[in-house]
């Protein structure tokens, strides 16, 4: 056992000891939470709390809702949205216009505002959602300005320009209407409470995890079968719809709205709420909202300087606590943190159950097998790929036979990884075809290829670094699960069964590669060799038939390489087909059935391993010419 591993195991032991305390911690946490809830309930009736401070409490609620709404987009998925105020504005204007023109009741306008804001977001985000961080940032600022200026310009006399719209009504539930400050205070916090319940469930579901996978590493997420575009848009629409609800409540409380309520500064503040609290942290967003509302109130006597202080504090916060005040801690919660109901207290029991239910053999596809006929799992036909005039892959033919290990070797820079990227759909080949089990996959996106039975690992490890090992492996099983947004928000029984199935599958794969004991550790804390193995487990969790490994042994020491070879041989025995890029000749010669040699993008040899060694072309290109 290496020093690193030993230190690491000690650390885990310490963490586990700490989790014994955490039972007590948990009681304290629940106590604090209960105290906070009582305080929130009693707040309007506390002594010294006048209407003014009740309204401050209402504002904390509005900003909490807005913060949570942006947290979905920015915190969970990592999309830089600096135009959230636009969707807040659309909710408010939808409410104001429809109420004043058509007299539709405010509470009916609540869902309508959400729909209009979300619908508008869908339309504007569809063409731009693929943009990289800073570009998206600037486009969302632009959208924010377009909406604000449009409201200012009073199109068709609808928005009444800079003066805004007055005479918006209060929410009326028939039996009673929300009118006083206290009523509004409870009204907004009931909405926030419901939203929080939904979001907690959502965070702990395949939808929430998919969002986090995208935030951690978009390419790895796509390559693990997650439809990145779909989930980004989903987050954008839900986040903006919640902002629309906030707009409705805001309008009905103040009965007047104008463009000056929805400036860029507003979007900035929301951005700040999310980052101040901690990315993807629900309590963080609430705290962030409380800070940005209450802070300026406390410093009201320094009226002119309060925003000055605020700016300075933002900078100081980012210097001393860049991860936010209450970041989401995943590694402390254990598997129960996944939010799946009825998990056994003892995680060992869970593993036992998972092992019982685990598939022991790779399932063969019924009809596809007949189609492939000759037992060829994967075939590339004349595949070519260029980058800015440089030919990376040149009319390459590769055949991978079912149930075998095929190795692709060649000097660094020969185009091997590029070929892998073409096979797994990250690049589209400029010409040629890729066939998997006899069917063409060259025009599919990575997330469409994975569920068909092709999984991969990356040369430079691409894990989801700040998620736990079990969450990393669960990403593999994502593509075979189906439950969507509403089932996840409600944690329906069928969705829970599916989550349990995903967990079992992940537990089995994690155990299979020997990483079960690291299940609740963050991936980035694992030693290098273990990270490589974790990637293999993640790929296996998608239940592939073909596993593509890009330099699995690089950076491993002799003992680890030995273990890896053992694992790969066991996988083949289980029925997997393997395709490797490998540099370690001991691995290549030791376990592969067939070797293909690539040089400068072209195939120079394809043969049995021992014959490859005697091929003069190969010796010259790869091993160096005898002087």
């Amino acid at each position, binding site marked *: 056992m290496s020093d*690193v591993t030993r*230190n*690491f195991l000690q650390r885990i032991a310490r963490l586990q000891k700490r989790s014994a305390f955490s039972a007590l911690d948990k009681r304290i946490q629940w106590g604090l939470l209960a105290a906070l809830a009582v305080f929130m309930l009693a707040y309007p009736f506390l002594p010294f709390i006048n209407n003014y401070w009740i309204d401050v409490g209402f504002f904390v609620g509005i900003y909490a809702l807005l913060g949570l709404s942006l947290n979905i987009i920015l915190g969970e998925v990592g999309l830089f949205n600096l135009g959230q105020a636009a969707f807040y504005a659309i909710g408010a204007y939808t409410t104001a216009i429809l109420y004043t023109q058509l007299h539709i009741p405010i509470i009916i306008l609540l869902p309508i505002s959400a729909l209009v804001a979300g619908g508008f977001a869908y339309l504007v985000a569809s063409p731009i959602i693929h943009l990289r961080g800073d570009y998206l940032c600037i486009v969302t600022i632009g959208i924010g300005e377009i909406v604000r200026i449009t409201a200012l310009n009073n199109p068709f006399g609808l928005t009444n320009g800079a003066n805004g719209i007055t005479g918006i009504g209060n929410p009326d539930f028939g039996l009673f209407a929300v009118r006083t400050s206290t009523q509004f205070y409870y009204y907004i916090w009931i909405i926030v409470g419901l939203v929080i319940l939904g979001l907690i469930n959502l965070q702990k579901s395949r939808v929430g995890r998919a969002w986090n996978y995208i935030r951690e590493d978009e390419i790895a997420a796509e390559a693990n079968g997650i439809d990145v575009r779909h989930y980004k848009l989903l987050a954008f629409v839900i986040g903006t719809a919640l902002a629309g609800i906030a707009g409705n409540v805001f309008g009905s409380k103040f009965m007047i709205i104008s463009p000056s309520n929805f400036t860029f500064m507003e979007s900035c503040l929301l951005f700040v709420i999310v980052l101040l609290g901690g990315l993807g942290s629900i309590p963080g967003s609430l705290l962030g909202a409380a800070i940005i509302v209450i802070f300026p109130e406390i410093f009201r006597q320094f009226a002119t300087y309060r925003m000055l202080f605020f700016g300075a504090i933002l900078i100081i916060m980012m210097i001393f606590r860049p991860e936010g005040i209450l970041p989401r801690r995943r590694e402390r919660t254990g598997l129960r943190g996944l939010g799946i109901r009825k998990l056994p207290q003892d995680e060992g029991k869970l593993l036992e159950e998972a092992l019982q239910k685990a598939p022991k053999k790779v399932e063969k596809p019924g009809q596809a097998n007949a189609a492939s006929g000759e037992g060829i799992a994967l075939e590339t036909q004349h595949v070519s790929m260029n980058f*800015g*005039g*440089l030919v990376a892959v040149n009319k390459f033919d590769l055949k991978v036979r079912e149930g075998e290990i095929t190795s692709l070797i060649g*000097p*660094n*820079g*020969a185009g091997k990884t590029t070929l892998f990227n073409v096979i797994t759909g990250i690049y589209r080949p400029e010409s040629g075809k890729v066939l998997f089990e006899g069917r063409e996959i060259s025009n599919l996106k990575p997330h469409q290829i994975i569920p068909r039975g092709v999984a991969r690992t990356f040369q430079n490890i691409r894990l989801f670094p700040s998620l736990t090992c079990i969450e990393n492996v669960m990403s593999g099983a994502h593509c075979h699960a189906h439950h969507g947004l509403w089932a996840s928000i409600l944690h329906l029984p069928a969705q829970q069964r599916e989550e349990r199935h995903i967990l079992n599958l992940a537990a089995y794969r994690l155990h299979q590669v020997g990483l079960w004991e690291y299940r609740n550790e963050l991936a*980035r*804390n694992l*030693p*290098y060799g273990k990270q490589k193995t974790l990637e293999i487990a993640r790929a296996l969790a998608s239940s592939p038939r073909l596993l593509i490994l890009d*330099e699995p042994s*690089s*950076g*491993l*020491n*002799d003992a680890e390489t030995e273990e890896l070879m053992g694992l790969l041989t066991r996988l083949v025995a289980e029925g997997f087909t393997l395709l490797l890029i490998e*540099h*370690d*000749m*001991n691995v290549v*010669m030791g376990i592969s059935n067939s070797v293909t040699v690539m*040089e*400068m993008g072209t195939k120079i040899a394809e043969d049995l391993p*021992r014959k490859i*060694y*005697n091929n003069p072309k190969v*010796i*010259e*290109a790869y*091993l*160096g*010419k*005898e*002087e």
Partner: protein
Amino acid sequence: MSTLLSVENLTVAYGAVEALKGISLEIPEGNIAAVLGANGAGKTTLLKAISGLIPIKSGSIKLRGEDLSRYPAFHLSEMGIMHVPEGRRVFATLSVEENLNLGSWSTRRKTPAQDLQRTMEWIYTLFPILKVRRKQLAGTLSGGEQQMLSIGRGLVSQPKILLLDEPSLGLAPVLVLEIFRVIRQIHEEQGVTILLVEQNARKALGIANYGYILETGKIALHDAAEALKTNEHVKSAYLGGQAARAG
């Protein structure tokens, strides 16, 4: 011969992971030393540590007995250490000429214009194609030409020691031959000391005086190049010795 560069007990870590675990090397003036090893063994890390690009955890790196850890990374080229990085790393949107001129950045003030001119001419005779392409953007060059530019750029400051990281990476065999011929020529004409990191073991040992075998962050073996060529372990792992056995 005196020692030009010495590395003692060098440890480098990325976070919790140690990439180099107590490495020592000595490179005498005027020598070519080769560092061989598999991908991920720590070869590139070693060169980056020497040129100051990554911080060292413990140990020392000395140039003619002077500890380099006291100097910022950008100062090392002025002291005579020049790293030609893996993957060429030419400035793609700058012209070939601008790339070469930037090679003189650290020594320009101290070097007479004539000397600089002469060095440039010498580099153009080593790589005549660079003169032809000098107005072109570096990103439009072929892989081999970019490698020549990268080496040429490293030579402009007339370094005492050249750290070459995988100069044969991704090049066709004929170009690999050409690059190694030029490396030998540079060594013969200017007497530059060279630390060569290579995956092409046979080629590297063909021009080196001395070799180090790096395995998962440690030096597994070091000896004169001639001796390494006939060493069984090296033959099997890096020179394709198994082929001989199998065949």
